């Protein structure tokens, strides 16, 4: 059965799931009105921390990913607190700056991060399971590859699924009402008893955590990372997934990331003009439907029917 599955599509599936996590990394702070383009920086941080922990210190992969997430959350708080003073576009540019500075640190710290050559031969998250399956000879060497890709996909699916479920569950609760209140009007929110600093830094560090986990999983999916993986383009891509999908709703980020990861693959026949189409979609969407495709009133209408 396994050989029937084609790892080309599984691979695209795995990248879609990673992009969904990155889109959530933009969605969560956006729900409190903070536009963060630091996703790429935290993703890089997560990827490098986990890769170094596994390749240099031999930690088991799940443990390394958790550490990468934890440390990046602290970094998120360290960046989040000072950026409370910044609003709108300034915050976007400052977090973009943070991402670039992190990338240069990866280039400069050669002894630890391998500099521009990056870190290679990072074991895949599916390594453990595949070894177990081969011992039980459920799979043999012919479909070992597909099995490993499938395990990677399933692990990613579980983690992404948990994040998406977590934020859907959080939707109509006290915490999310506070976040939306802050997004709509900070002064009013503070005067009805919401500690806006606490919730903004909470959202920012949640975003750092999710982006770092996405980075760590990315490292253990492609087994080679270099500073050029976490550039300005990656941060902008995450923003576009969320905004196009619909920045008002969790499923908007999911929809945006899925469609915009599959479209470039599907537009592969356009060759150079593929990205021109990508850019054009952006401009058209912003002109005619800035709140994105999935919005609250779609669900409200569905509920009404």
């Amino acid at each position, binding site marked *: 059965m396994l050989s029937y599955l084609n790892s080309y599509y599984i691979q695209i599936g795995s990248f879609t799931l990673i992009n969904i996590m990155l889109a959530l990394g933009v969605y969560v702070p956006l729900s409190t009105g903070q536009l963060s383009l630091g996703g790429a920086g935290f993703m890089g941080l997560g990827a490098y921390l986990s890769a170094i922990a596994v390749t240099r210190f031999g930690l088991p992969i799940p443990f390394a990913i958790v550490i990468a997430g934890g440390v990046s959350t602290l970094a998120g708080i360290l960046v989040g607190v000072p950026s409370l003073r910044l609003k709108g576009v300034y915050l976007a540019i400052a977090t973009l*700056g943070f991402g670039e500075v992190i990338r240069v640190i990866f280039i400069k710290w050669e002894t630890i991060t391998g500099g521009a050559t990056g870190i290679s031969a990072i074991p895949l998250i599916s390594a453990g399971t595949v070894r177990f399956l081969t011992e039980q000879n459920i799979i043999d060497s012919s479909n070992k590859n597909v099995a490993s890709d499938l395990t990677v996909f399933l692990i990613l699916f579980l983690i992404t699924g948990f994040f998406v479920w977590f934020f859907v569950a959080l939707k109509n609760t006290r915490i999310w009402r506070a976040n939306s209140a802050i997004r709509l009007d900070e002064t009013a929110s503070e005067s009805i008893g919401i500690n806006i600093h606490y919730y903004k830094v909470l959202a920012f560090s949640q975003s750092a955590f999710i982006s770092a986990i996405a980075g760590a999983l990315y490292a253990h999916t492609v087994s080679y990372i270099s500073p050029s993986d976490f550039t300005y383009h990656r941060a902008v891509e995450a923003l576009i997934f969320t905004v196009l999908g619909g920045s008002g709703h969790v499923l908007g980020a999911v929809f945006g990331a899925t469609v915009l990861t599959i479209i470039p693959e599907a537009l592969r026949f356009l060759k150079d003009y593929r990205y021109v189409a990508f850019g054009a979609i952006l401009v058209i969407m912003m002109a005619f439907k800035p709140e994105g495709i999935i919005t609250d009133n779609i669900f409200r209408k569905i509920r009404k029917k």
Partner: protein
Amino acid sequence: MHLFIEQLINGITLGSIYSLTALGLTLIFGVLDILNMAHGAVFMFGAFTAVLIVSKLGLPLWVGFLGGCIVSGLLGYALEMFALRPLRRRKNTSPLAPLISTIGVSIILENIARALFGSDTISFRTSISDINFKLGEIDINLINLVILAVSFTITILLYFWLKNSKSGRALRAVSENPDTAAFLGVNTSKVITFTVVSASCAGGAAGVLVAMAFNSVNNEIGLAMGLKGLAIIILGGMGSVNGAVAGGILLGLAETFVVAYGDSGYKEIIGFIIIMAVLLIKPQGIFGTTQKVKV
């Protein structure tokens, strides 16, 4: 000692080009409150057009220069028409919409440039690019002086045009408060279009100067210059013209001297360190004004 002066000239030349680019960004931000992320791409197209005119068609340099400015001006017009104007018509769009829309435009322009001009560097041999002379110990090439002259004249022209020409005042009125300006009979949409076009021309001119200074153009220069432009107008104070000029020169000198006396690995990152530092310490930059939040 002469090394210091040579590096100083390098720094100021680079700085003057940065100021010209930042001027375009500050004008658009001042009037429209929008960070034009497509400015880098417009800058690149100006450079490519000049190279095409001079190298391929063999026309003189000043024709190339004009061509570069005109093409970027047209791009500015298209940018305003298709990307920014529809946004203005919708009432409560988030401040992020223009930011994202201009990012879309920059992706389009970059990939069209890659498709048209290929991704390789194209050389830009001009008649004056090889002349250089010695002033005592110091090697100076004519190109640097030409660039300094051109960028300063454009900056001063823009400066006086803003200060005392009629349309210049109209532009500043719109940037202060579009509604009152409209109330006083200023045709705001015409002024806004004019601003975007002139800002893009300035960007195009800066692009041609870069092509002249470094004798080469490729489609990567747009993005780097765009991000540096952001650093400059944040350093100088958003929307302030003299902030853009001072910020540009400062960044040019900082980058040159970090290389001359520090580790040249940090040249590209100075811009971002400045952004982070300024935003955290003095968000309104050197010359900017703080925006009060009214309750």
